[in-house]
């Protein structure tokens, strides 16, 4: 359960990071606390939306989904279900791939690095790792 608890806390952190960036994009919170101004460059660039949807909103929805999933996976009745950690790992894997794509854009297209995006990148990678670890140990849990 420690992995799922960790994944839930990480998802919550990711949700707040994405919400912060999305509220900025909506013009609700002024400038971003970034230090270099590069966050605003990234967030105001044409690449801050993907298929017409704000990347930050995609983050909000993605992390909210992961959070709901991890909280569900902590319920006693669902703890032994293997599909939950599989789904969690799959979604986190998609998140990692999306983050790699966004990091590529930051480094080679926009030429600016947003620290909040980097933080989100570490969060989604950590969720992916704990989801894999959870998946690996699940058979032992079921036989105990």
């Amino acid at each position, binding site marked *: *359960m420690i992995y799922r608890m960790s994944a839930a806390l990480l998802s919550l952190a990711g949700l707040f990071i994405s*919400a*912060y960036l999305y509220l900025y994009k909506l*013009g609700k919170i002024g*400038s971003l606390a970034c230090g270099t*101004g590069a966050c605003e*460059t990234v967030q*105001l660039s044409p690449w801050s939306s993907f298929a017409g949807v704000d990347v930050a909103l995609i983050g909000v929805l993605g992390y909210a989904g992961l959070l709901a999933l991890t909280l569900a996976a*902590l319920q006693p009745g669902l*703890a032994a279900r293997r599909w939950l950690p599989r789904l969690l790992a799959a979604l986190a894997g998609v998140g990692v791939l999306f983050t790699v794509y966004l990091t590529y854009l930051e480094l080679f297209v926009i030429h600016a690095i947003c620290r909040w995006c980097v933080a989100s990148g570490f969060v989604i990678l950590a969720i992916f790792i704990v989801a894999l670890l959870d998946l690996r140990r699940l058979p032992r849990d079921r036989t105990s």
Partner: protein
Amino acid sequence: MAATQAGMKRFYSLFAVIALAGLGVLGYLLTRPATVSIPANVTVQASDTSGFKGYVKGSATAPVEITEYADYQCPFCQTFATLQMPTIEERLINTGRLRWRYRDFPLDQHPFAVLAAHSAACADEQGKYWDQHQRIYEGQGDWAASGNAAPIFRKYAGAAGVDLGRYDACMRAGKYAGRIQADKNAGVALGVSSTPTLMANGRLYRGRFDSDAITRLVDSLARQSNK
């Protein structure tokens, strides 16, 4: 193995603390005063422009019109606005030879460019556009290096005699984000990709950006229009 009840309790306590802290920070950011940001790359609605095609100074009957596409955070635009424009204004605009049209072209790499354009637009509501415009350009070195330009623009607006209550409401609403985007879209459609870009009587100007060169250009275009 299922987590112990005590373990779950500790987890939910920690979860609640983090959730409350996060919500508290976001709540503070949403309610703090005088901090504003204007979204870029918005979808332009027909009502955003209502026929607006830039800020104009000079006689409606002037034989030459120059349209400037510029970005408040662009250093070259700042030099042009503060060093060349006063002479151009005195020599050409005030004498009825030239009409100047300023259109926003905020570049994506300038985080405060849209905010600056919006601040000037909100001052325009109260008839203080050019005053705010000049103050923003003159103060570029201060606000461009700051972490938050919004309060600096607000200070300029106050100094220009703008009613700050109405200004704040205008800024918070992001009322002119669409109009600024419409200006930029118009520039892109004409092939503008850098700032400042000048269009003289509708044609792209590729010459030098100094008052003497602009005077020669205006003289030349005025002669052509007289023929």
